[in-house]
């Protein structure tokens, strides 16, 4: 199985409003793929379709080789990180991370507890295990959300602009964190963003979306070696190319 996600001719409308107008692209196994598009172009809708949190009207979507409409089995291999952390305010950091395991498995076994702890270490929050969400900064909250998503050992991570609204430094740190997790855990990541620089920094491939009704404008391979320098001539050239693509 070469592709983690296969999307072909995907159509979705809300009432009379056509949002996705025949989207087709694939995400390879272990690939870091960014979907780049303007605000309100249906990027979030696409992620919700992939996580089966909303339905779609036409085309087909396969995740991990199973048809999204007919099968639920693939759900156990994906995790979603939303734009907002969506933490439970009455649970501590650790209990929030543990939540995903509780929900997915129904009970938490000893080995899961170890995974929870290792996920907390991975995002550097072991010292905050017993803190409550309101005691954390925005970046830390998003780290908890990331740890929660990782605690169920997903194969595919869907990320919906998780760094929007964070300050530049925190953003940078979290980008590194995500890249580290991606390479260490052999994850497939579909990362949605509206920021071309972020896409260039993170992705192996960038899928550029148009305005609504949304189509795929371009699919760009990013071959710049890591760690990437956004002020390098290749990166700047790519950025210019993407801007042209946006305004074409």
């Amino acid at each position, binding site marked *: 199985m070469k592709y983690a996600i296969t999307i072909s001719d995907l159509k979705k409308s809300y009432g009379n409003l056509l949002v996705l107008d025949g989207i087709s692209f694939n995400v390879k196994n272990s690939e870091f793929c960014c979907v780049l598009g303007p605000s309100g172009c249906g990027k979030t809708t696409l992620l919700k379709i992939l996580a089966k949190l909303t339905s779609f009207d036409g085309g087909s979507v396969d995740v991990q080789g199973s048809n999204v409409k007919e099968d*639920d089995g693939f759900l156990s291999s994906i995790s979603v990180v939303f734009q*907002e952390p969506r933490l439970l305010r009455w649970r501590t950091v650790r209990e929030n991370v543990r939540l995903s395991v509780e*929900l997915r498995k129904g009970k938490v076994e000893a080995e899961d507890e170890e995974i929870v702890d290792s996920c907390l270490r991975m995002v550097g929050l072991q010292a905050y295990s017993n803190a409550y969400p309101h005691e954390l900064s925005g970046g830390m909250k998003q780290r908890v959300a990331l740890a929660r998503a990782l605690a169920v050992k997903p194969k595919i991570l869907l990320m919906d602009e998780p760094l929007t609204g964070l300050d530049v430094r925190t953003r940078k740190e979290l980008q590194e964190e995500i890249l580290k997790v991606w390479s260490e855990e052999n994850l497939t990541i579909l990362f949605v963003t509206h920021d071309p620089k972020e896409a260039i920094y993170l992705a192996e491939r960038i899928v550029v979306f148009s305005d609504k009704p949304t189509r795929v404008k371009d699919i760009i391979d990013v071959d710049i070696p890591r760690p990437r320098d956004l002020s390098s001539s290749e990166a700047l050239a790519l950025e210019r190319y993407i801007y042209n693509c946006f305004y074409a």
Partner: protein
Amino acid sequence: MNLKEIARLLAAFLTVLAVWLLAASLVNSYLFPSPLQVADPFLEMIMKPSTWFHVAATFNRVLLGVALGSLLGLVLGIAPRYSSTASFVVESVIQPVLESVPALCWALIFAALFGLSGTAPVFVVAAAIIPFFTINLWEGVKELDESLVEMAYAYTRNKLRVFKAVILPMLYPYLFAALRTSFEVAWKVVVLGEVFGAVNGIGYMLWLSFSSYSIDRMFAWVLFCAAIIAFFEYVVFNLIDKRLIRRWRR
């Protein structure tokens, strides 16, 4: 509670006593005893073990009634979220009936069903408090943070797990508010239930004192009842509120 609040509470209490004393001395009849006349039977009652037996019987009925009513109220309050038929039945049939039938009617109906066995007051309590649970939970369900529910569904399709881990905790503050109101209401209506459907308990003793013209004893029982309600309101629930419920609030 700080000193100032205690002083204020004491002042309010003394004012009530003073007004009562004044009113009683104006009426000057054994049908309206003064606090001084009630003090004797009240103190005597506190000493007597049989008094505590009656209090325990009533307390037991309150607990059972609240347990039964809260369980049913919980189901009725949450069912509309999961089924539109349930929503219709609860909102346009069950809730209006439960809200409009006076507690006295329930007392008579359940006394007719269960006789003097002491079961009737339990059901009177349950029937009286269900609407409070239903209304509070509707409010809670409307205020649910749907983004958290969606997050939970991204991890599982098991509705029970989502309910237990995410939805129910969001409803705790509303459940607690309902429980608090229910306890007050329960103490009021349990007495009514006991007048018609029991041969012990505070309500029965109230009725007994009334029908034997021992008005001073009747007043003493009323005081007893008020003291118990106040104890729950000011001590028990405030403690629970401080210790437990705050962390579930926004």
